[in-house]
């Protein structure tokens, strides 16, 4: 019996790792995808969209299996609720990546080369903040004392992303030669990418509370 329980647990540990890997990978794909879009490599861009959509599907189904197992096998009774919430919040990051990149595909905004650097930077910081929350979450499962080492970086990247995104929006609205609708459209894209870092920070705030609860 004990062996059975242990084996099941190893399975669930692997699945959680896999889930976290998926989110981390999606961040990289997102970054590459937006880069391809800005550089006008449409084929690459479309391939990345496919990849991210696929990752999002796998993430959803993994999350559902995990949730089911947690409840059916009544694992970690005292942190079960927290872990479920964490998984759902992390999954919403995947949704954010997918939503943002699809928006690019649907609207195909015209982004002038002078904004490229800033856009790339916002994307980079958003992805970094997600990467940090993934590291924090891994630590939450494996080594709770190390969570703090990663968590503070989430806020750092979020602030950086905020700054760049504000500058970008300012620059967009200073461009009198663009139509208002065009400016509003570009601003929405800057905001949507920046929003990913905000969501990551929200996840980190919740995670900080789970950590306190667990160490009580």
């Amino acid at each position, binding site marked *: 019996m004990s062996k059975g329980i*242990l084996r099941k647990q190893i399975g669930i*540990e692997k699945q959680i790792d896999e889930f976290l890997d998926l989110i981390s990978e999606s961040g990289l794909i997102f970054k590459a995808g937006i880069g391809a879009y800005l550089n006008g490599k449409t084929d690459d861009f479309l391939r990345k969209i496919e990849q991210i959509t696929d990752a999002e599907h796998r993430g959803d189904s993994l999350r559902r299996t995990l949730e089911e197992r947690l409840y059916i096998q009544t694992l*970690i009774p005292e942190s079960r609720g927290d872990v479920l919430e964490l998984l759902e919040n992390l999954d919403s990051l995947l949704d954010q990546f997918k939503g943002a990149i699809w928006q690019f595909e649907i609207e195909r905004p015209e982004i002038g080369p002078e904004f490229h650097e800033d856009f790339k930077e916002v994307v980079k910081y958003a992805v970094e903040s997600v990467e940090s929350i993934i590291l924090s979450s891994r630590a939450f499962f*494996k080594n709770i004392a190390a969570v703090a080492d990663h968590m503070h970086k989430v806020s750092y990247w979020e602030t950086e992303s905020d700054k760049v995104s504000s500058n970008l929006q300012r620059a967009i609205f200073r461009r009198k030669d663009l139509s208002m609708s065009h400016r509003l459209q570009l601003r929405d894209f800057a905001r949507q990418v920046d929003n990913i870092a905000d969501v990551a920070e929200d996840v980190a705030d919740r995670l900080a509370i789970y950590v306190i609860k667990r160490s009580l």
Partner: protein
Amino acid sequence: MFAFFLSSGLFLGWSLGANDASNVFGTAVGSRMVKFRTAAIVCSVFVILGAVISGSGASHTLGKLGSVNAIAGAFMVAFAAAMSVYLMTLARYPVSTSQAIVGAIIGWNLFTGSRIDTNSLTKIVLTWVACPILSAVFAMIIYKLVALYIKFMKIHMFKLDSMTRYGLFFAGALGSYSLGANNIANVMGVFVPVSPFSSISFYGLFTLTSAQQLFLIGSLAIAVGVFTYSKRVMLTVGTGIFQLSPVAAFVCVVAHSIVLLLFASQGLERFLISHNIPPIPLVPVSSSQAIVGAVIGIGLLKGGRGIQWKTVAGITSGWIVTPIIAALISFISLFFLQNVFQQKTYRPVGYLITIDAAQRIRDGGVSEEKFKGLQGREFPTAVKFSNALSEYTELTREERDLIVLSAQMDEMEITRSGITGLDTNWITPEQIAALELLEGRVFDHQWQLDEALAEVSPYWRFREDDDKYNRDLRQKLSYIYRFFRYG
């Protein structure tokens, strides 16, 4: 009639199961790591195994109720203990079953006017204080160590979860085994000598002795108690005092077991002595009080704010009330049994300062003046004798104890049939040989037999500085009295 008397033993078994299962599985079920059904199954199986396999080792002692010298009295005492434990279970408080039994025996002592073992009373009071404190301290230390270990080893949340679950199962199973082994004698012991069962052999593979069959029935009663009624007390232990995390739940069970092992195990004491290590002093401990202490210890370690002090107060007052209620119920129901149902609830023990007794008292350093006037007068009970002593003269406590013990009548004759009835696994061949030398001799007092045996054989002599050996010898002596007593 046997079945009727047995019923109160079964009731005691049932209430023991309903109350004491919480000591081993309360924290596991309370922290939701083990489902109640699973806990009940594991607990029942191991209680039965413990009772039948290891409990039979104690079959030569009658358990605590052994001092009650008539079966109808034992029936009522067991009933009183069971009733008080049941009432506490209704109130969801974990209490000590053996303290309920001691309380009920005191009720019997009061009713029959026999000597009250004041030693066991002080022991109970000491347990209320010492046991929870010891256990709380152990729980705190172990928790700190475990927390360090988890931090250092970087154990994955799910691995920790399964390890804790496994540990809770293991500790619970072990605890249940010893629960069965240690308590079955209290539940069924008195009925062993009057059991109508005979040994059953299973195809020559193993044999169930008549005592084991009784223990099996008793442990089944415990198991039924676990299944039907133990959940409420489990939840008090597991969540009512302090909401335990799974790791803390495990730490509590371990701390409770360690306290029981270190401070109550005669096996450990024997081991330490035989290896020339100074033994840990034996402190009276109770499983229920140990687990409650451990939970409070963890609560205090976490700052103490989460502890439900109201529940703690309820539990501790339950501890104090249990022996008192048991004594009351025992006293009142013995009165009814004796006077309404005309049952013999005790065998009278008289007190008479015989010529030999007078000699012994003088040898003990008490001047003859202090008891001369009472010589030759027989008193029906210890209380009456004691009162007469007080009226006659002033005595120190030691002097009084010496006179009362010397004058206690217990007429015995060493017979062949008595000797052959002894358990040869326990009473050694040398000790039996000494008894054979005394065959045909008649004694008025227990101490006379003790002295006669010590005279003919070194194997019946007490040793200086060997408490363990002396305790064992004392048990053997009270065991053999029963075989040579008149009537």
